[in-house]
Structures are given as structure tokens and as C-alpha cells.
């Protein structure tokens, strides 16, 4: 019921232009360097409270936000569904009211339902960061992917980006699509028709492929997405071995992309299903760097949201 005043949220990439995106990347770049030299400024978020509200299991994203918050000096509290009152029948909005009353400054939420962070943001004064909602968006993942690409290729425009795998169920694919479109790159979406909604064909600068060989040709970046085991049981893909045979990223297919093309994966990886170990561990792989940039990007997001809030 409390109308949020001066709240700045990061609910999704959709609608953000280069002017909104680039400042996050620039600040994250500097935080990456400071983190490497162990000089992260612990006073930036001192006295601020960050709550990680995770309705879905995620060790890596939660840990990344936790480290980001702590590196800037925030008090970080992790709430997971297993121990919270959500299991006792409390609604999402009641949980929001409760946390709001505790006067937290930043609320990082992951939820299995698309739109849940947007709903929550209507009810709290804290800045809400979407850490992944259903099949909708995962904005910090798109920002960290963009930062990783920019560090290696020097730009985010006029690139050929291939995103391979389970596009249909992927919030990572959607956020990356919005971001890379906004920055002026072209996106190839590659996957079997059951995992690649034809509706994406109407999006600007997007081409759909059902063949890795065609889609990877001369790509600057190859992003693999995790394929969930339950997709096999749901009748969307016949088997892991068929999936790897037709859509797995191996050395032979990677060779069709531009020389030195980046290999990316949001993790956790299924080695031998969507990506061959030889590729994941190759010099072209920037998967570990994505994780490192994840912390830097989240530091930048937390910092900027609070600054935007106090400036408003």
C-alpha cells in the first residue's frame, strides 16, 4: 500500500537504451579492477541493508550478490524459501510488506514466476533488483555478459552474437536479446523448434536457426544456455545424446565461428550436453571471467540504484 517514493529498481533490460546501460558497465569495469587489486571501497554501502530473497535455489547468483554487497560494505542477509514464512502460506506481497517494515535498502529477488519482482516493487520502498524471474528477465546476467564481451572485443555494436539452446525457457536469453539489440548488434538464436519460439523471428535484428552449422558461421560470440533435464521428459527433446549430437557446441562447430570467437555460458554447465569440455576449457572460453564480472556488475548495480534513489 505504501507508495514507493524515489525508488530505483532494476527489473529488466527491456526499455533500457545505451545511455541507461553503459553507465552500469563503466562503473562495473572500475569495480572489476578494484576487486582484482583487493581495493574495493568498503564504505560505499556502509550501513545499508541488502536482503537476498531467493524463492528458487541458486547458489552462484546469490553468492555473487552477497559478495558484491559485502565488498561495498553493506549488511547482507540471505533469505531462502526453505526457512521463510513463504512456506507457511504467506503471500508474496505480505512478505514484501514485512521486509519493507524492516527498512532494508536493497531487495534482490529471484522467483519462479515471471513478473514477481515487478509486483514486489509496487509494495516496497527498497530498490528491487531482479535476480531472475521465471522465463522473463535476468538483467544482471545480461549486464555481466555485455561487460565480458566489451572487455574482449572492445565494443557491443555490430557484433554477430549466437545464442544457442533452450531459448524458450531462458530469461538469460531474453535479457541478452534486449541488451544486445539496444546496443546495435545482431543476434542469431539457435535451437530445435520446441525450444525456440517462432515469435522471436519478429524481433528486430534477430534471425532464427535450427542448425548450429548455419547459425554459428562467422559469429563473434557464442553463448550456450543450460538445458534442463526435465525438458527431455516433457517431450521437447528426445534425449541428451541427440541434443548434443545436433546442438552441442564442440570444436568442429566452434571452428565455423570467427577465429577467436568468445565462448560463454551463464552456468551451471552440463558438460557433454550443451557444450563439450574441450570447448568449455579452451582458451576461447570466457566462462570464468563471466563469473568474475558478475560480482563487479552487481556491485555497480547496487551502488548506482542507491545513488539514483537518493538523487531523485
Amino acid at each position, binding site marked *: 500500500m505504501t507508495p514507493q517514493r524515489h525508488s530505483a529498481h532494476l527489473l529488466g533490460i527491456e526499455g533500457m537504451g545505451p545511455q541507461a546501460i553503459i553507465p552500469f558497465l563503466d562503473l562495473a569495469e572500475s569495480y572489476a579492477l578494484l576487486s582484482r587489486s583487493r581495493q574495493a571501497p568498503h564504505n560505499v554501502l556502509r550501513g545499508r541493508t541488502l536482503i537476498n530473497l531467493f524463492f528458487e535455489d541458486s547458489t552462484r547468483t546469490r553468492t555473487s550478490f552477497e559478495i558484491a554487497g559485502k565488498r561495498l560494505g553493506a549488511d547482507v542477509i540471505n533469505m531462502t524459501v526453505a526457512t521463510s514464512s513463504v512456506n507457511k502460506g504467506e*503471500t508474496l506481497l505480505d512478505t514484501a510488506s514485512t521486509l519493507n517494515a524492516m527498512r532494508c535498502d536493497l531487495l534482490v529477488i529471484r522467483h519462479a514466476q*515471471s*513478473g514477481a519482482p515487478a*509486483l514486489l516493487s509496487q509494495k516496497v520502498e527498497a530498490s528491487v533488483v531482479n535476480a531472475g*524471474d*521465471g522465463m522473463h528477465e535476468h538483467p544482471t546476467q545480461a549486464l555481466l555478459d555485455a561487460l565480458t564481451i566489451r572487455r574482449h572485443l572492445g565494443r557491443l555494436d555490430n557484433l554477430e552474437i549466437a545464442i544457442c539452446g533452450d531459448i524458450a525457457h531462458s530469461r538469460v536469453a531474453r535479457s541478452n536479446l534486449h541488451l544486445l539489440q539496444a546496443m546495435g548488434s545482431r543476434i542469431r538464436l539457435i535451437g530445435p523448434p520446441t525450444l525456440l519460439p517462432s*515469435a522471436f523471428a519478429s524481433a528486430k535484428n534477430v534471425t532464427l536457426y535450427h542448425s548450429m552449422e548455419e547459425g554459428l558461421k562467422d559469429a563473434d560470440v557464442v553463448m550456450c544456455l543450460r538445458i534442463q533435464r526435465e525438458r527431455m521428459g516433457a517431450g521437447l527433446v528426445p534425449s541428451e545424446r541427440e541434443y548434443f549430437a545436433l546442438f552441442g557446441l564442440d570444436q568442429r562447430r566452434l571452428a565455423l565461428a570467427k577465429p577467436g570467437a568468445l565462448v560463454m555460458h551463464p552456468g551451471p554447465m552440463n558438460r557433454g550436453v550443451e557444450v563439450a569440455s574441450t570447448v568449455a576449457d579452451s582458451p576461447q572460453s570466457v566462462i570464468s571471467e563471466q563469473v568474475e564480472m558478475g560480482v563487479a556488475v552487481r556491485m555497480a548495480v547496487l551502488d548506482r540504484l542507491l545513488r539514483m534513489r537518493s538523487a531523485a
Partner: protein
Amino acid sequence: MNTPHMIAFKNIRLIDPISNRDEKSELVVQNGRITGYNAHEVPKGISVIDGKGAVLCPGLVDMRVSLGEPGAEYRETIESGAQAAVAGGITSMAVLPDTEPAIDTPSLVRLIRQRGQETGLVSLYPYGALTRNCAGQEMAEMGLLKQAGAIAFTDGARSLGDAKQMRNLLAYSRFLKALIVLHPEEPSLARGGCATAGPLAVKLGLPQIPAQAEAMMVARDLCLAEMTGARVHFAHISTSGALDLIRTAKQKGLSVTCDTAPPYFTMTEDAIGDFRTYAKLSPPLRQEKDRAAVQEALADGIIDAVASDHVPADADDKRLPFAQAMAGGTGLVTLLGMTLKAGLPLLDTLRLLTSAPAKLLGIEAGTLSVGAQADLCLFDPDMQWTVRAGRLPGRARNTPFDGVTIKGKVLRTFQSGREVYRDDSLCGKQA
């Protein structure tokens, strides 16, 4: 709200679709029934209502209404639903049986009829369950339900996946001459979905229902209707694919009919952007080409009636992430005004809302013939007003039309010649 012995309506534009009348006229009501059209012959001293040029038409007949009673009275009761109905000019409504408990026994049918009478506002016609508990398994006691007063049979918003079972239900219904009202949506294709498949649902990351799920079920049930000779009626048709099939079936002479509801010809799926749960309906809102097809089918007569498809929901049902929120919107108060937006001639619009649904249900309503029960709606077709969620009569607030400006306002509603609604906002201006 006394019951005058005799009322004379003067200075009205009388529209009676069943007789194709649309003319300046008068109307006389005696002992709750229409007795003539010449108010000069009436004795002095009786009540005279000056319509000031407004339209007087039969009270609307709404053939698809969900009320929370029994089982979910926090959403809407028969009483609060009846208040919303008369504010929308509705004097007869058929209520769905998928309540808690479902209306699947003769005593429950009688209960609903009695509760309707107790409101003293509207004529309430209960649908009987097609299957026990509307669960889609065993056949309900259609014959006994019909004897108790069930107007037609349906499982509400549930569609039956098993073709053989549907064939048996339709075959059985035939000797009862019962109308079977279906929610056409292929259930396995629609399972878990909440938005029409397409770029918007993909962008929002919402589980999808292909628009074809409707046509697919219509196709199957048309085949079964042809096999069995049953009277099949498809509710809230929302896609061009389904309309094409129904058009062809009508041309072949099948006894098939259909209705739609205002959201499907006045709105598109764009309304669910930003996860707006008040626009989450079942079937889900469609893309523009389907909306246009529904509007066209209203004009060319393929759609037989317009119903409100009123589904009351409480704040707790709607203030949830989109996929978890309850589907449905209120529609009683806005039925007439939103249907006028289809832009049809007034006579045709009112036919879809009065005599046509009355004929489908086989009820004596929706007419201004001499001798008919004086269920009347007096409305100003030019008066504008804006829909505000939470400010409409009725308990539920979940109108999908929040903020929409409507041209056409109900001024007074009469049931059996008794005034059951008067627009309070007009007392100063009109009188």
C-alpha cells in the same frame, strides 16, 4: 421501490428487437406486464415516467455469469451480483454451475432459483452441471436437473478432453432437448498457460496458450454435434479460427450457436503488458486480428449473443504474479456500454443482448410484446461515463475496463414493472 398498479412511459425511443421496432413511442405497464403502447388512453393519476427521449428496451438477458455463491461469497454473492446486474440494465441472468459445491443436484438448482427470487431484483436462471461436480468425469443427472429448473448444461470454464465422453454427453442431452454450453479450449494444449501464444507472451516469459486451442476444440465438438444431433453452444468465442468453423457449420445447417463477451471485441492482449492481472481472462485476450474477426462476426450474425462473462475476483485472487493470479473479469455493469462499442446499429446491438440470448435459453424475456413481463431498461445511448475499478456496484472490483470511457448509460431498470435500479448520479440532473 413500491409496485405501482400501472405505469406509463412517455417520450421514449422504444426499441424492441424481436419485432424490429425502433420508434418514438409510449409504453403502458399494468400489474407487471406490458399492456400497450398508447399512454393517452390511461386514466389520470397513474405514475408517468418521462423518458426525455432516452431508449426503452427489454431488460438485458445475460447468458454467462459467474457468482461466488455458493462457496466464494467473498468474491460476489447472488445479492451483490444482482445489484451489479440491474445497474447494467440486466433483468435476467443465467449463472454458471462451477461453484463450491457445483450445481449438480436438483436441490441445489432449486436453491439458486430461490436465492435469485429473494433478491427481488433479477430473474436468475441456474445452469446445471454437465458432469458431476463439473469435474469432467461422470455424467450429471441432466434429466432431474432440468426438471428442477436448470436452464441449460455446462461445466463452466472447464473443457472436456475426452472425445468419447463428450460424445456420450451430447448424445444423452438430445432427448432432453437440452442446450449444451461449452468452453472451447483444448485442455492439454492450454494446460498451465495464461496468455495467448505470440511475441508478447514470449517477451513477458508467460506460459502460453495457442489461439488455435479454441478452434481445435470447436472442430472436435462440431464433429460430435453432427454425429449426435445435440444442440451445442460455444461460449466466449475469441478467435477467427473458431469463427470460421462455426460459420461453415451454420451454413451446413448444424444446430450450433455461439456468444462472445465485450473484452474479446474491445481489447487485445496488449492490456496484459506490465503483468496487469485485471486483464487476465479465460480465454486469454487475443491479438488484433482475432479481435477484429470477433467484431466482424458480430456484424454478420455469426455470433448469436453477447454475454458479460462476469467472473468476480477478490484482491487476493488478483494481487499475485500473473501466472498465479485468477483469470476473469467483472462485466455486468459494463455489458451494455461496452457492447455499444462494437458500433452496430442499436437495434442489432440490443438483439444480441436481449431477444437472442432469451431465445437460446428458451426463456420468456427480452421482448416488449403485449402481455410480456415488464422487464425494462431505460438508457441514454449518448451519455458518457468512465469506468473506475472499485466504484461500480457489486462486490468485486476486477473490471478489465478500468479507465475506459463508455458512451451509453443505464438510467433505470424495471423488473415486472417495478423499479429495481435508478442511476443516483442523475437525480439532480435529470429530474
